[in-house]
């Protein structure tokens, strides 16, 4: 097994582990971390793909750079919503399904 293969599998493993955690954990910060790292898994995969041939392929590198910036943007917004939700409800969980009924009176 070559280095590239190992990194390919590593990226897949990171993606899968984080997908599992994303579903299983309830705390929103954990979910945000999970999604962020899931993205990293894809980036590892892309970088490994770039390394396959004789020359390094710069296009996946550009994709990953873009992806990192997008990921930090999304993470920042997600964390801000977590804070807002925490301000409003006092906790950082999403209501389970069925609990989505309007919690704050008629206005909903």
């Amino acid at each position, binding site marked *: 097994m070559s280095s590239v293969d190992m990194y390919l599998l590593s990226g897949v493993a990171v*993606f899968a582990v984080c997908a599992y955690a*994303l579903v299983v954990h309830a705390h*929103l910060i954990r*979910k945000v971390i999970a*999604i962020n790292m*899931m*993205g990293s898994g*894809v980036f590892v*995969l*892309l970088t490994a*793909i770039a390394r*396959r041939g004789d020359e390094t*392929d710069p*296009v*996946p590198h550009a*994709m990953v750079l*873009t*992806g990192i910036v*997008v990921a930090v*943007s*999304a993470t920042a*917004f*997600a964390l801000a*919503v*977590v804070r*807002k*939700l925490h301000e*409003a*409800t006092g906790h950082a969980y*999403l*209501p389970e*399904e069925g609990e*989505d009924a*309007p*919690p*704050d009176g*008629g*206005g*909903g």
Partner: protein
Amino acid sequence: MASVFENTNWMLAPILVPLAAATVAFLLMGIRGEARRNAQNAVGLAAALGVALSALALWAMVSGGGPVRYELGGWEAPLGINLYADGLSVFMLITTAIVGGAGSVYALGYFSGREGEDARRKEDLQDETGSFWPLWMFLWASMNGMFLAADAFNLYITLEILGLSAAALITLGGTRMAFSAGMRYLMVSLLGSLAYLLGVALLYGSFGALDLATLGEAASPIPPVWAALALISLGMALKTGLFPLHFWMPAAYTSAPSAASAILAGLVGKASFYLLLRVWFDVFGGSAPPAAGQIPGVLGAVAIVWGAVMAMRQTRIKTLLAYSSVSQMGYLFLLFALVSGAAPERSFEAWGGGVYLVLAHACAKAAMFMAAGVVIYSVGHDEIPRLRGIFQKLPISVATFAVGGITMMGLPTSGGFTAKYLLFTASVGTGQWWYSLVVLAGSILAALYLLRFLNPALIQVPTAKVYRDAPQIMSGTAFVLAVFSVFLGLMSAPLFELLSVGAPFPSGTMGGS
């Protein structure tokens, strides 16, 4: 005249105009009060006009000269990024131009509440931070960008813009429910885009290209391609809200400000569906196993029934509409089963029917959410049991609901009828008659859930109190849009001509033998 339309730079206008408007509206956030609202309104409306004009220009260009390709930065694919417009792209652009334009006009009234005004749902009336317009413009640009993109990674970025701005629009609702719904949507959206990105990575790993056309030529039935198809489908089904991945939808559509709900329910879900269409038929064309289409097909069929049954059990207009969306989205997914069915000559019918429903449903559902917004604006809530006899007070909005319902039920002469007629024909024609039963059952179920609101609303003893009159422009826009959706069935000929430009299936005679 013709020479103006031949300039392919038109293709950038639907993307750049809203982006520029978003930037200007963003800068205008600094001004306070009435002045900001007026300035942002002007910018937004100008952009809406620009998008509409450019969509028309593209319509002329594409129907005149066939599909158009644009090389960004002057770089040929696969090195550079291309834009590509065929009939489907332009059709989707027109959809956003119509529904987005109506949404923009509606927003003029919706966010016109004055500070300090007695408002039970303050967040519905004021956009205190002035974020609605820039967010909506980003959202619009991302959708248009998606419809014109010909590059897999570029699509990923537009998906992300779409997800972020849509989530932010939901949280503008400002309630606890809005924050949790916005958060849930953000998660779903990010997860969906990541699944898509992983799919793209697999495709790049297999073929070394991102250009959709290049990928389409190269695609072959090998494990990475199957995995990519599965991941992309999963991600987009999640973002579109296909049963059973629709769990985020009701809360999101309910708690967003109604101006945003209309846009979200009308357009945003359709964008990811568009992507699905592109990927399935333009990229993977022949490499998907024929039975694969049965998975979305069956789930869509279940969604039609499940969504309608759930809609019947709701006590709020907006949740009812949201579950109705679950049901109507199900119709869209039928086409995957029908296209991969036994009779290839029926493919264009099924495909075109699904695509036409996108437009029809977008108009009708947006109009109905707008009408719900008028109710909330005027009455302060949208709880059906407390809205008995509301017809006496808000006749136009109830009428909007009823007229929009015609499309939901798929009755003539609505666009919903045309679409469901074609889906029906295709399902019988491909020998998959069980889908035709679902199509028909969905119509009756739709009638039942619509009556859940219409029946009490029409009753003569009014119990609901209207404490404030909504601006006429709100109810008017909603009504016009709903009426438009009912006449869509009569205007289908030119639109289908447009759709046949660059369609993945030959468009023969439809509905015939």
